[in-house]
């Protein structure tokens, strides 16, 4: 059985697809797609082979693009992807995830922060209003990237449960399919607030929220102010930043099978450039749920490196051993086919990479 591995890349100037059909040894590049719109997130459905790309264009506004032929042709829609008249219009789609109940059902997180759902494979969209009806909404503040809903995490066994993360509002959880929400930020800090206010109920600058496989209540997050793990669905968070070179970074990527393994790419800090520490690139891996960390550098550049990696720009694949991938602000793409032990640069000179996802297809 032939395995095709696709890397779905969102960039500042369009979506790109890398494909390998020889076990991740060589990669072919296709793109740019989506009329070179800024594309914040690209996901694929391995069952149907459908690819969706969410973004927003300064001229034309937000849209979700769809390809049913692995990128050969694309269409776009934003029908229903709008707030009520008079509200601040949606600028861009930031995150996509499969939604429960129905083939091709999707969630989309947008800027300014809100949640939408499509039940027809992205052709039309409807607002999930409960999130923006949360009483905290008047206090949500935009982070450096805007007021964005960037992380969507579904419970693997319970269709009613969903977590989202918003910069800068924090993590929220719904137990009723999005009708009502509660903040899930206890234990995560806001170093940008006065000392006595650093652990608020909401208002945290979550950078990336991911779920651990096989443990539905285990979540990890990279925050503007630290790295954290929760073992109770986000009700309580525990710092896991000891042993890391900084408390700042953007992406987090879970292992496809091991809930104790997580990949981070810490940056030097929010006030000193937000690039890799000491001019040397490393992915940091824990095998024990954040108790200890190992820096992975084999094959990564170690001198005069001044790139960053954005919040959605690191991913794993589902193969054995797992592949790990990240794209840089400077348009390079790095890949590991051995769980991070060794790395290769598989592309350079791309536009700024905004997101990386993987799609594995069995022919």
């Amino acid at each position, binding site marked *: 059985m032939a395995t095709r591995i696709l890397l779905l890349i969102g960039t500042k100037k369009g979506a790109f697809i890398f494909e390998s059909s020889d076990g991740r040894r060589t990669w072919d590049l296709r793109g740019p797609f989506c*009329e070179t719109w800024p594309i914040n997130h690209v996901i694929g459905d391995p069952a149907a082979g459908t690819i969706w790309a969410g973004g927003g264009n*300064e*001229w*034309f*506004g937000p*849209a979700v693009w769809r390809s049913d032929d692995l990128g050969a042709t694309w269409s*776009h*829609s*934003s*029908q229903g*992807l*709008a*707030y*009520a*008249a*008079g*509200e601040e*219009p*949606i600028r861009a789609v930031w995150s996509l995830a499969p939604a429960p109940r129905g083939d091709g059902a999707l969630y989309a997180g947008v800027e300014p922060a809100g949640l939408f759902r499509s039940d027809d494979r992205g052709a039309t969209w409807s607002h999930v209003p409960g999130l923006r009806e949360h009483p905290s909404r008047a206090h949500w503040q935009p982070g450096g990237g805007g007021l964005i809903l960037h992380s969507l995490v579904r419970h693997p066994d319970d269709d009613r449960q969903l977590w989202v993360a918003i910069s800068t509002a924090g993590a929220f959880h719904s137990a009723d399919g999005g009708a009502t929400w509660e903040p899930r930020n206890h234990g995560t800090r806001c170093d940008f607030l006065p000392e006595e206010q650093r652990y608020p109920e909401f208002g945290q600058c979550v950078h990336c929220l991911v779920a651990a496989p096989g443990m539905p209540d285990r979540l990890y997050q990279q925050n503007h102010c630290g790295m954290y793990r929760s073992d109770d669905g986000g009700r309580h968070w525990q710092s896991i930043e000891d042993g890391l070179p900084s408390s700042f970074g953007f992406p987090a990527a879970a292992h496809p099978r091991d809930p104790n393994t997580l990949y981070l790419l810490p940056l030097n800090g929010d006030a000193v450039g937000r690039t890799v520490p000491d001019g040397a690139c490393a992915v940091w891996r824990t095998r024990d749920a954040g108790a200890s960390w190992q820096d992975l550098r084999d094959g990564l550049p170690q001198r005069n490196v001044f790139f960053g990696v954005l919040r959605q720009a690191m991913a794993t694949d589902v193969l054995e051993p797992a592949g790990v991938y990240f794209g840089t602000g400077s348009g390079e793409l790095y890949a590991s086919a051995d769980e991070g032990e060794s790395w290769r640069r598989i592309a350079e000179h791309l536009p700024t990479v905004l997101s990386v996802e993987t799609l594995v297809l069995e022919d």
Partner: protein
Amino acid sequence: MVGSGPAVTVILPGVLQRLFPGSVRRVELRAASVADAIAGLDARWPGMRDRICDSRPAIRRHMNVFVDGERAALDAPLREGSTVVVLTAVSGG
């Protein structure tokens, strides 16, 4: 020509045409206002309104619509023979 109102000509930018396969640069339609003209475009190529207008509703910040050489808003009236030019503004990086 279908619809009601004055007969007008709408000129679309190529970058917008590329988003709607089968659309044409020069569109003849009947419309009493810029909003009517954009509704006419949307009827021909569903979704085109969302690319020109936001949900406030207003013409998008980085789009411009000119009626007979004057920059116009959605409620600008059209007259028989008006030319409506849709343009992308200077934007991006």
